[in-house]
């Protein structure tokens, strides 16, 4: 079983010293904007990407730079900003205990200047992964890879990578029981199957074939998951990074999405996702069962007396009710309190 078992970030972006021990199942990251949720997904993804496919044997620094896309490509900009020189450390451990370490300073400009340790051992076994960004890209797929290869468009590499993953040929042979059930659930939700003609994706159902640009964006996301399962990108032992699954999804679809995520976990996929959405979060609470492996990670800035905001820290909980702080329910509380105040016409005081 391949999974990430530990992440240690020192002086990296919003983090001064963050240690996480992710669940081998589902990891739900919540926190207000600017608390580094996507950064955690990206840094883990970069470390996974260099173990397989066309990124295998690429320098980690190059992948890190392309995934984060800092200004002028200066990776030193990813070091937590301080008034003095400082060094960032990224240490990631996978199941089995293999550890990978990358070190660089705020003066580091070129990706070749990032020092890595145990990369050879780290890359001996592949860590299959897929990163689904907030913005759905499949509708833009035709021609995008060619444009990106010519470096005519400065874009975070996660967007190009997911298109490449979607283009991988479908697996042949019968699907196992779990995979079949998962695909069936997705086909019910998207009401069809995905086919590829040239570089254009279509949803095929009884009504015919509908090209992706004409398909609702939320549906395209579910269709993408169907493709990733069909082509073996999401399988037992792979890792899914999903940034804000709720984006462009009607709340009525959240139940299906969470159902699919739980089924992926049961299949043996480790999942990291971020969310700002109450309905999505509540669905995890409602659908979690004894066989679920789920962990909620609440990221927040710890108040420091001398500064308005301190570094981002994390609190972890195995249950929804244990999420603390929960900025999503906290916002709803404040909203409801406003409603109550209005009800009482400013009183009773």
């Amino acid at each position: 079983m391949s999974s990430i078992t530990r992440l240690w970030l020192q002086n990296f972006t919003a983090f001064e010293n963050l240690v996480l021990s992710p669940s081998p199942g589902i990891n739900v990251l919540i926190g207000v904007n600017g608390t580094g949720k996507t950064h955690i997904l990206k840094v883990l993804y970069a470390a996974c990407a260099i173990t397989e496919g066309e990124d295998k044997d690429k320098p980690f620094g190059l992948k890190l730079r392309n995934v984060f896309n800092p200004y002028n490509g200066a990776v030193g900009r990813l070091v937590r900003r301080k008034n003095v020189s400082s060094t960032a450390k990224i240490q990631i451990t996978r199941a089995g205990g293999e550890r990978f370490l990358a070190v660089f300073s705020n003066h580091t400009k070129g990706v070749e200047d990032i020092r890595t340790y145990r990369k050879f051992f780290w890359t001996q076994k592949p860590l299959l992964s897929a990163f689904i960004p907030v913005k759905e890209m499949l509708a833009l797929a035709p021609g995008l890879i060619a444009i990106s290869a010519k470096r005519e468009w400065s874009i975070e590499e996660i967007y190009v990578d997911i298109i490449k993953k979607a283009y991988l040929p479908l697996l042949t042979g019968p699907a196992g029981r779990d995979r079949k059930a998962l695909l069936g659930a997705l086909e019910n939700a998207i009401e069809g199957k995905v086919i590829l003609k040239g570089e254009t994706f279509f949803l095929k159902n009884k009504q015919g074939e509908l090209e992706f640009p004409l398909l609702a964006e939320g549906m395209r996301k579910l269709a993408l998951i169907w493709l990733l399962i069909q082509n073996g990108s999401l399988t037992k032992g792979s890792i899914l990074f999903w940034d804000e699954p709720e984006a462009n999804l009607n709340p009525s679809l959240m139940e299906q999405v969470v159902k699919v995520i739980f089924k992926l976990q049961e299949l043996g996929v480790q999942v990291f996702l971020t969310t700002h959405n109450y309905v999505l979060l509540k669905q995890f609470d409602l659908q979690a069962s004894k066989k679920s492996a789920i962990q909620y990670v609440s990221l927040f800035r710890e108040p420091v007396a001398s500064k308005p905001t301190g570094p981002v820290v994390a609190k972890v909980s195995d249950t929804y009710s244990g999420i603390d702080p929960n900025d999503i329910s906290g916002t709803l509380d404040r909203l409801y309190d406003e409603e109550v105040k209005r009800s009482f016409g400013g009183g009773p005081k």
Partner: protein
Amino acid sequence: MAFREGDLEIEFPDHAAPRRFDDPKTHKLARCMKAVDCIFEWNGDTYFLEIKDPDNPKAQTEGKEQFLREFQSDVLTNKLTYKYRDSFLYEYASDRIKGKIHYIVLLCMKQLDSYLLSSRSDELRKSIPLERPNGPWQNSFVSSCTVLNIEAWKRNLAQFPVRRVSDVARRAT
């Protein structure tokens, strides 16, 4: 002045004059009219308070299940609606209504977060109803209608402290 309902106790200032309304000894039409648990006054307005406490540690499983069934269907909203309407009628005919009337339902269910409380409040407002039909009605039937859990009560009605009697007893032992 404390008002106790089951395992919950709410402390009111004396001038809020809370009175137990759902009491056959004082409610002369208890045989045919529903009644809210408590009525109190505050800042010149009248507050109707109904308390539902499925989280009461002493509540029987059967009772909790029954409550859950009512909660999940429209039975609870209907009951809360009729309690309000009958209480309003009784108080109106008794000429005891002062100022505006606010209806508060204290619903002690730890699963109820603000999102669900808000949707419950909306449902009850539609059912009572809170809206005044254009034209015929000259007077307001209800000024506000709010469903609160204990946490929301503590945040919004801090001047009326609420506590669980069993919690206090447990801490004392």
